[in-house]
């Protein structure tokens, strides 16, 4: 069970799990050992995007470069392409996504994971990922920006 950093902006509270790294886009990567990482979206991304209607992840075995789209979330608001922040090969897709894509909303840091990636050697270190406090600052900036727009 991960611990969380939290920030409340207006009426919204966003959590950032402390046991993983983040891309500025809100993709989290959790080290599973052996060069494998589990990936998913942050609480901010799922709240900002709305209820997920369909979650489509590329097939296991797909080789991906850093920045390639590895998944798409179709929500009630948007179609959101998700770029993988590292290079690697997709080795596992969350089997729960087909029948229950809402798991991404309900538990983005747990059962709502999207895929497991076998990272290219050294790529996680090179990707310039953010630690949880740094990503929390990104969330605060992005949420404040959204509020200003409204």
């Amino acid at each position, binding site marked *: 069970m991960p611990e969380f950093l939290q920030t409340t902006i207006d009426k919204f509270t966003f959590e950032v799990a402390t046991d993983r790294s983040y891309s500025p886009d809100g993709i989290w990567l959790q080290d599973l050992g052996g060069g494998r990482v589990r990936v998913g979206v942050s609480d901010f991304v799922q709240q900002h995007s709305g209820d997920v209607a369909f979650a489509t992840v590329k097939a296991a075995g797909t080789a991906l470069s850093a920045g390639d789209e590895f998944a798409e979330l179709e929500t009630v608001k948007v179609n959101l392409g998700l770029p993988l922040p590292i290079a690697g090969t997709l080795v596992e897709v969350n089997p729960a996504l087909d029948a229950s894509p*809402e798991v991404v909303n309900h538990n983005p840091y747990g059962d709502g994971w999207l895929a497991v990636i076998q990272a290219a050697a050294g790529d996680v270190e090179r990707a310039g990922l953010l630690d949880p406090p740094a990503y929390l600052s990104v969330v605060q900036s992005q949420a404040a920006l959204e509020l200003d727009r409204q």
Partner: protein
Amino acid sequence: MSAEKQRIVVVPCSGIGKTFGSVSRDAAYEVCDELRPDATRLLALSKLVLGEEEARQQVRSGRTVTIDGCKLMCAAKLVAQSGGTIVREVAVLDVYRRHRHLKPDGIAEMNEAGKQLAQVVAQEIVETIDQIRAPSTPGEADHA
């Protein structure tokens, strides 16, 4: 029980400014104004939000169908909180998942797919209403 009391109360979410909320309201109008006007009564969720006693009494004394645009399920939760009996809880998102080609878009001006999705939701509700109102035994209709 009078025919008026037997009417099924239909409560769509308010979802103002939300595409799926608009689908839920369109579906409710379709059911209550067009498809089963004599069997249903439309109730605005805002009346339950405000705690209006007449509205609360309506959901307490009859059977209710709720239609929610998002997973917050405001309509279902408020009807339950008001002591109502929900005979069908419709989540528009779940219906859309079964009809992916009908992606709704727009709010004040709904796209054609959204209008069709509202029709599908309405038809599903009508099936429920008809099942509930169908006499359970052959002789029952004569005594209704």
